[in-house]
């Protein structure tokens, strides 16, 4: 009975740590932006009642956008990966039909109004070369036994059409030298001949033309067979009209689109962008190359950043002034989508590359000018800012006089209305200054399209963007083939005399760096090249004299370089230990690097080497966040003794995955001291497979994987303890340290769902308890207190106070879904960063949608509640003050009377 009561009390005490959100708080601290991804196919519906755009994207999304604003009206997400890749869209009056999938093609009809699924059918087609729709029939073109065969299906029902047409295909020269446009297949053969044959009717007629070309492409949108043939950078436009092949020369470096206007007239629309900030359009009649003045324009805008635009779909109409007007949906190489009005301007544009974020960094804003002046004036040494000013008596006096003069001047200026606000001078946006609680920051994101964005974290507004055009390519993760972009914040906003600086590592023939000033997105003397191939980049623990955190770069022959190279350091760094991991061959090497204060002549020495056996692959390396602090050194047990945490700052977790004959795949977690190369602990998870996520924080680790045997997601939780005594009480050293392994507590939990990403919260001083943020495939963002994943959750009697009894399944209460009803689909990652408030952690979730919020794992104990009653406090203090004054008077009067008695 007593134990039950204790359990009930304990459970109810944990109910309070669950953070719900009040209805009126929704959207106050968070924002969400919906995206669709890079557009693959589109169609414009200009029906007056609907006025919509339909798009199918590389992210396997089918969506409808409003033509006037570009807002998403509905969005449907298909299967992930090649199973859901959209191959074709076909708009009809009431439905938008998509064909998706590779080996099994799935045909689906979506309602144009609300995106509801009307019908779905599927068929197997292993060797499909092309798919096209003609006359309400889906044509599936495939190649077998020297014949080109075409199967037809009724588009809405999936009923197979009459018979399979076959064509002799001796002229079919492979799908890379052929193109299909409007039901006609055109192939370049080796003898320099272009053959065009129609695949719609079962005739064997084909048209031929002598033409040499390297490449053939179909022109999108065209209702007649039209192709672009490229031969040594000379482009020619080939089209078929009334059974004749016609050739027209084309201006190269521009993308073409053919639009049929009034049944028999074809317009050729062309678009190009000779410079990043200009967009040139041209319109002409296809047959006679007559230029249509009203469709030709040139526009340049400094805020534009466009590379390789391409018309995805268009619509033309006759205006009142009897000229032709067109709207075109334009997609660019950097994956932005815009609606272009010809003649005229860009109506809206969407940055769809934000669906492919590969790296995120939160950058603090600099302090305002006034605050900077105050900091300088008083020369406060304990301030978090670095103001680099001398503290001599005379110089301080001069500085003070000077700054007061300046303050007086700004005061006069403000009064007279010369300058509107004194902080205007910091940047283009006056509100981009550091706030008191450090909640306002800039999110710097790198996208795989090569575009870098600076986003305001409070409202999600894009402040700046940089297009890395022709600078270099991204590194590639050799295990999963995804691009990766190492970014280092080399100088933060604390240094008043210098602006913050971000460095992005890119690959080209020579490795390249791109500096960006993250506040305004400028990249002055932007790109640096180094003449070696970088395999590892590690920031130094000390700054150089220009307050830049230098990087140590290891080249492919494992010799170290300092970057920036020619600047001496502010102090001599301690001996550094750096490790390099090769994920594919399983080699791990540790080096010690001696960096002299001059920053020249670095020397490295290999000190340890570990070799995983083939075919083991290193799939993840989890290190603790460099900003993380561990506040509490131990845990108090029920017998009042302390269990000390094993906190090794050099420990990294390495996950390896190896195929196995009996267990399918074996996932091993190794805890490695990256300085000494000592394997602290290893544990084997059998039959574990992707998706695998790893979290390493403080003295614990979480590893989530899919268990093939039990067919569910499991989370293994590990916690490391030193025991009852602190082993390295004075100073921690990995080199020559003790061989006594730490105590490892382990436990596993079942997660009723599938994880897309997992990340712990982080706060400035580590006092606040830790929560784990988990993004599930159902679109929820769960905030799970770490106490639920604690491996010391007792099965029997509780070992310490506040421990929740062990339950194998993790709870997923709806109160802990911090994104409430805003589902987050296809999450790629979660980024957490501390604010200056100890209680609050900033969270940014990226993937198909962007979501930003802030969480307070231990509730906001350091700020007053929003509904705090200031009036009552003011009244109470005033009453107290007045009554104190009155009673004092009364008391003195009484004392006087007493004295007279």
């Amino acid at each position, binding site marked *: *009975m007593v134990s039950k009561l204790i359990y009930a009390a304990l459970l109810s005490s944990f109910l309070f740590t669950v953070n719900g959100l009040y209805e009126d708080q929704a959207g106050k601290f968070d924002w969400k932006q919906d995206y669709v991804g890079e557009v693959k196919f589109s169609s414009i519906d200009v029906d007056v009642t609907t006025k919509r755009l339909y798009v199918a994207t590389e992210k396997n999304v089918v969506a409808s956008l409003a033509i006037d604003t570009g807002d998403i009206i509905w969005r449907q997400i298909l299967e992930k990966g090649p199973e859901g890749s959209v191959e074709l869209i076909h708009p009809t009056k009431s439905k938008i039909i998509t064909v998706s999938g590779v080996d099994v093609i799935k045909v689906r009809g979506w309602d144009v109004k609300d995106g509801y699924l009307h019908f779905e059918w599927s068929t197997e087609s292993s060797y499909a070369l092309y798919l096209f729709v003609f006359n309400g029939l889906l044509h599936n073109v495939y190649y077998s036994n020297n014949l080109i065969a075409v199967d037809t299906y009724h588009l809405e029902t999936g009923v197979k059409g009459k018979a399979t047409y076959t064509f002799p295909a001796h002229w079919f020269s492979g799908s890379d030298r052929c193109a299909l446009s409007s039901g006609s297949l055109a192939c370049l053969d080796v003898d320099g001949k272009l053959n065009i044959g129609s695949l719609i009717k079962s005739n064997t007629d084909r048209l031929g033309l002598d033409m040499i070309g390297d490449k053939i492409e179909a022109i999108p949108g065209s209702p007649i067979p039209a192709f672009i043939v490229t031969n040594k950078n000379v482009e020619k436009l080939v089209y078929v009209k009334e059974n004749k092949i016609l050739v027209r020369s084309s201006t190269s470096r521009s993308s073409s689109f053919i639009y049929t206007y009034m049944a028999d007239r074809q317009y050729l629309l062309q678009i190009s962008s000779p410079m990043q900030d200009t967009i040139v359009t041209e319109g002409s009649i296809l047959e006679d190359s007559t230029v249509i003045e009203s469709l030709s324009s040139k526009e340049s805008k400094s805020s534009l950043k466009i590379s390789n635009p391409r018309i995805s779909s268009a619509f033309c109409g006759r205006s009142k002034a009897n000229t032709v007007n067109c709207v075109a949906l334009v997609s660019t190489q950097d994956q932005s989508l815009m609606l272009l009005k010809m003649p005229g301007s860009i109506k809206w544009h969407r940055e769809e590359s934000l669906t492919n974020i590969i790296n995120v960094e939160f950058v603090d804003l600099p302090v305002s000018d006034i605050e900077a002046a105050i900091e300088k004036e008083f020369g406060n040494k304990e301030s978090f800012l670095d103001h680099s000013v001398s503290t001599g008596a005379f110089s301080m006096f001069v500085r003070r006089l000077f700054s007061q003069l300046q303050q007086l001047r700004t005061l006069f200026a403000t009064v007279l209305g010369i300058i509107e606000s004194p902080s205007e001078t910091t940047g283009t946006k006056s509100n981009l200054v550091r706030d008191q609680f450090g909640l306002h920051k800039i999110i710097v994101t790198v996208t795989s399209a090569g575009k870098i964005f600076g986003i305001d974290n409070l409202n999600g507004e894009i402040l700046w963007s940089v297009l890395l055009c022709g600078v270099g390519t991204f590194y590639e993760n050799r295990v999963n083939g995804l691009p990766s972009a190492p970014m280092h914040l080399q100088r933060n906003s604390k240094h008043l005399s210098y602006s913050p600086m971000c460095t992005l590592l890119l690959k080209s023939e020579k490795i390249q760096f791109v500096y960006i000033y993250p506040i305004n997105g400028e990249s002055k003397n932007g790109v640096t090249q180094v003449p070696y191939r970088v395999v590892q980049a590690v920031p130094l623990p000390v700054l150089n004299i220009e307050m830049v955190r230098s990087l140590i770069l290891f080249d492919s022959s494992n010799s170290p370089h300092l970057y920036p190279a020619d600047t001496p350091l502010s102090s001599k760094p301690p001996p550094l230990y750096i490790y390099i991991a090769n994920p594919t061959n*399983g080699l791990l*090497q540790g080096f*010690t690097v001696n960096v002299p204060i001059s920053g020249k002549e670095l020397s490295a*020495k*290999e*000190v*340890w*080497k*570990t*070799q*995983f*056996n083939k075919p*083991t692959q290193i799939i993840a390396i989890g290190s603790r966040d460099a900003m993380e602090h561990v506040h509490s050194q131990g845990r108090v047990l029920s017998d009042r003794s302390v269990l000390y945490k094993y906190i090794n700052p050099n420990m990294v977790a390495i996950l390896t995955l*190896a195929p*196995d*004959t009996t267990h399918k795949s*074996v996932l*091993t977690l*190794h805890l490695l001291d990256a300085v*000494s*190369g*000592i*394997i602290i*602990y*290893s*544990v*084997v*998870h*059998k039959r*574990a497979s992707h998706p695998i996520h790893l979290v390493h924080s403080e003295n614990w680790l979480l590893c989530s994987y899919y268990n093939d045997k039990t067919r569910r997601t*499991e989370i*293994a*939780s590990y916690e490391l303890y030193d025991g009852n005594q602190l082993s390295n009480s004075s100073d921690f050293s990995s*080199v*020559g340290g*003790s*061989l006594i392994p730490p105590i*490892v507590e*382990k*436990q*596993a*939990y*079942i997660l009723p769902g599938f994880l897309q990403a997992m990340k712990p919260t982080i706060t400035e001083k580590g006092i606040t308890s830790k929560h784990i943020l988990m993004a599930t495939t159902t679109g929820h963002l769960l905030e799970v207190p770490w106490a639920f994943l604690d*491996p010391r959750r007792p*099965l*029997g009697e509780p070992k310490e106070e506040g421990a929740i009894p*062990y*339950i*194998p*399944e993790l709870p997923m209460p709806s109160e802990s879904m911090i994104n409430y009803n805003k589902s987050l689909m296809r999450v790629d990652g979660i980024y957490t960063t501390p604010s200056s408030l100890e209680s609050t952690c900033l969270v940014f979730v990226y993937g198909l949608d962007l979501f930003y919020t802030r969480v307070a794992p231990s509730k906001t104990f350091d700020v007053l509640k929003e509904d705090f009653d200031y009036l009552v406090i003011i009244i109470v203090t005033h009453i107290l003050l007045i009554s104190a004054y009155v009673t004092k008077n009364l008391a003195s009067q009484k004392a006087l009377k007493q004295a007279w008695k």
Partner: protein
Amino acid sequence: MMHYKLIFLFCSVLSGIYCSDTSYDSISDVYLEHELIPNAGFTKRSSILVNLESRNDVVSTTTINDSDIQLLKQLASKNELYRLKVTVRTLSGKETRFLTFTRACLIVGSKLNDILTLHLDHLDSPFAVNLATTSNNCNSFNELDTSNFTTTVFFRRPESSPVPDTATYIQKMERERDAREKGKSSNNKSMLGKYWMYILPLVIFMMIAGASNPEARQ
């Protein structure tokens, strides 16, 4: 028919054993080389024969010559690192090279007693070697009186992962349920019967309180 099945089963079991035997490639010996002059290259220290079947830790002693002892002392006095290159050979002749290190003064300070830990993966093949010493003494390197390296070789295999403990949890739930049912059967009096001693004084108190001020009721 039955016989065929049995033979087939037997064969498959045999082939299974055979398979695991061929993939099982045991470690035969560990070859050690150390570096006594910084960046001057490695020289042979010893070779230790290892038998994984016996599942015991191996202790081996080798003598090194006096000049090497002097070099080791110099290394220790300069507070340099002592690097050890370890080559693990298997019965089939496959070699894997590892590198490990510690501070030279610790080697001298522990009177040439060192511990090598061989980390084996789930298939018993090595992936890492760690060097440690028996003491953390880094001061008394002048009192070295031995020229025998005493090496203890440990083997460490990975632990197996935790699994969600559903069985114990269900048992616990069942136990609790049983206890509840037992409690109910022995104590199935009504609430009034159980708590009359608290309720009665409360009722009396309220009656007295009600009777003492009859005006309030009107």
